[in-house]
């Protein structure tokens, strides 16, 4: 089982009742696996904030909930996350943050362990698929015991690696909850209520800190040698690979970490080395406690680690190293598929020379040669609103380009903002009917749900009409008719008014899949 499949299995064994999220590599396969288990409600929500809100509502009403997203999704959901720590959740609420060190398919490589610390909630981090399953189950128990959301952090190498998993049958939670029970002082976070809840949150976290000292998943592995390692997640496997006999303190709970246990461990070794990817999250805390430790002295703050990096950095003798060649082979970056409907529009945008405020999806590949027709891409939904900023700053030659799923995720608020504030931009929606980049998940423009049920399909023309865009400035054209696409872009741009152009062309991979 992959780490993602194991998380879904763990949620099933924990009798989860709801799974929601927004697709994002490397988290997507969790819900795609969860949907196949019986009696669990699953959905692709329109974005991560919505998914988490649904999870909190369900948990407060007594249903264990699993909410999944990639690391940057937590940025979107953070508003809810921080306050849900105050209110508590009643039934278990587990939020998966799938981090992507080395940016295999992401716009940044932020270290989401900081979120657990900032939001004051516990975070677990498995090191293989079996742990992914078991930690998911434990996360639900912890969440209910301390009335707090729990984060489960994976990284790409955990989410997308497979290893053996022993299955168990679903076990009913120890506590069975009734539906929603009114408690305004706990659930209505006006300042007079939120203050006491913050105090209560500090109490809950300090209890969890005490528990961390004795938790089985914070495991001391005795060994030979004077160098001891503190590590977690995939880095644990790398350390074991290179130093199978060294003493190791393996942290399963990565926030809060056990001060006394680490201090005790440090007394047993001459040198304590912290092995962690990205930021010195453990190392800074350990040093702040006055415990001598090294970590980032040996390893970078960027990218992934690997067994070889640990071997080389720590001077373990290296048998004859990798072979190398000076032969230059061309890179093979991903590119828009042959015949992809997005190709037409980027050819045209390249020819017309507009500044293209872009967004996230397969179509971001339009930034690369031979198209070279996208000039900015930072986050989900930013295309429409960044173009507004450009317009205000005096740039007239801008168009915004966004995909259908991204439009539903956070483009619609930008459209409303443009209308409200009198902007005159051209918004181009590339509608291929699916969330293609992450592997073809349905969305509110697909007319289908995660479980394959038919669903409402957003009507662009009515939506545009509702924010006051007149009919003649809303067009839908076929992606495979380049002349129509070009004409529509030129005419709508020439109108000098807020306008919406939907370029329709179904994703070829989806078409092929549906034929089968």
């Amino acid at each position: 089982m992959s780490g993602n499949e194991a998380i879904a299995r763990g949620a099933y064994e924990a009798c989860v009742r709801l799974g929601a999220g927004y697709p994002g590599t490397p988290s997507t396969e969790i819900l795609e696996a969860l949907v196949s288990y019986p009696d669990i409600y699953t959905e692709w929500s329109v974005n991560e904030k919505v998914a988490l809100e649904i999870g909190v509502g369900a948990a407060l009403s007594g249903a264990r909930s699993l909410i999944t997203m990639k690391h940057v999704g937590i940025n979107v959901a953070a508003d809810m996350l921080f306050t849900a720590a105050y209110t508590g959740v009643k039934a278990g609420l587990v939020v998966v943050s799938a981090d992507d060190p080395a940016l295999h398919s992401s716009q940044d490589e932020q270290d989401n362990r900081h979120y657990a610390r900032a939001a004051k909630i516990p975070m677990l981090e498995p090191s293989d698929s079996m742990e992914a399953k078991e930690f998911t189950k434990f996360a639900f128990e912890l969440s209910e015991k301390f009335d707090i959301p729990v984060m489960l952090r994976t990284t790409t190498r955990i989410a997308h690696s497979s290893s053996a998993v022993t299955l168990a049958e679903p076990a009913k939670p120890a506590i069975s909850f009734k539906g929603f029970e009114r408690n305004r002082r706990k659930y209505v976070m006006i300042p007079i209520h939120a203050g006491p809840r913050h105090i209560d949150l500090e109490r809950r976290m300090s209890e969890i800190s005490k528990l961390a000292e004795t938790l089985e998943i914070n495991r001391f592995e005795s060994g030979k040698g004077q160098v001891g390692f503190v590590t977690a997640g995939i880095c644990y496997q790398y350390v074991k690979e290179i130093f199978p006999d060294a003493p190791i303190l393996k942290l399963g709970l990565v926030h809060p970490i056990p001060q006394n246990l680490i201090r005790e461990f440090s007394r047993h070794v001459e040198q304590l080395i912290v092995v962690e990817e990205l930021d010195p999250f453990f190392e800074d805390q350990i040093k702040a406690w006055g415990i001598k430790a090294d970590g980032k002295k040996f390893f970078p703050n960027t990218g992934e680690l690997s067994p070889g990096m640990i071997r080389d950095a720590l001077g373990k003798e290296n048998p004859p190293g990798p072979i190398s060649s000076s032969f230059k082979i061309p890179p093979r970056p991903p590119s828009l598929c042959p015949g992809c409907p997005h190709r037409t529009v980027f050819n045209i945008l390249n020819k017309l020379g507009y500044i293209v405020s872009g967004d996230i999806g397969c179509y971001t590949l339009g930034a690369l040669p031979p198209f070279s027709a996208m000039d900015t891409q930072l986050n989900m939904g930013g295309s429409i609103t960044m173009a507004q900023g450009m317009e205000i700053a005096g740039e007239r030659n801008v168009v915004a380009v966004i995909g259908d799923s991204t439009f539903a995720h956070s483009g619609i608020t930008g459209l409303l903002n443009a209308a409200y504030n009198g902007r005159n931009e051209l918004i181009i929606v590339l509608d291929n009917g699916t969330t293609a980049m992450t592997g073809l998940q349905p969305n509110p423009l697909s007319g289908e749900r995660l479980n394959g049920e038919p669903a409402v399909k957003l009507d662009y023309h009515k939506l545009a009409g509702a924010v006051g865009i007149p009919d003649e400035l809303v067009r839908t054209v076929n992606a495979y008719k380049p002349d129509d696409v070009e004409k529509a872009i030129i005419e709508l741009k020439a109108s000098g008014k807020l306008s919406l152009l939907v370029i329709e062309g179904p994703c070829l991979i989806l078409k092929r899949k549906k034929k089968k």
Partner: protein
Amino acid sequence: MKTTGNILLVGVGGQGIILASNLLAQAALNAGHDVKKNEIHGMSQRGGSVFSHIRFGPKVFSPVIPEGKADLLVALEEMEALRWLQYCGSQTELIVCQTRLNPANINEYPGGIADELTRLFNKMLTIDPVSLARECGGQKFINTAILGVVANTLDFPESAWRNAIEKLTPEGTAAKNWEAFLAGRTTKGTYE
């Protein structure tokens, strides 16, 4: 003492690397090994390079092969064999299928790759994709056929492979995949 088998499967999106690696991992599991497998998906559908690490033995820690430690590199595309040398050492054997696929925006396949591979690898088996496709029932079974070639280098029982193919290949294709696998076992590549 060497206890872990390290196989790196590489190619291009669409060549069936992921299915082949699933089959290999399942066969290793069936043969009684602890197994870990690592790949990255997300962008591979769009024609990028694809890799999968498969590691097996009594107890496997890292799902990623340590640099320089691959025992076997299996390339379903010729140029891709050169892209992953960081995982290869002097012990690494190469099985390379001489399929040549140009990356997007490159119109001429670089020359001299076969010679460079011969220079780099002490042991190398070159497979002609045209004759293999003829033997194994077509282009789309090449991935399973190559597993037959790989199987000749491993001591997994035949039943371990057969079960994996029956369990994991798409519905209705198990028999054809099994034939392709057997064709791979008997195909004649060129040893160097």
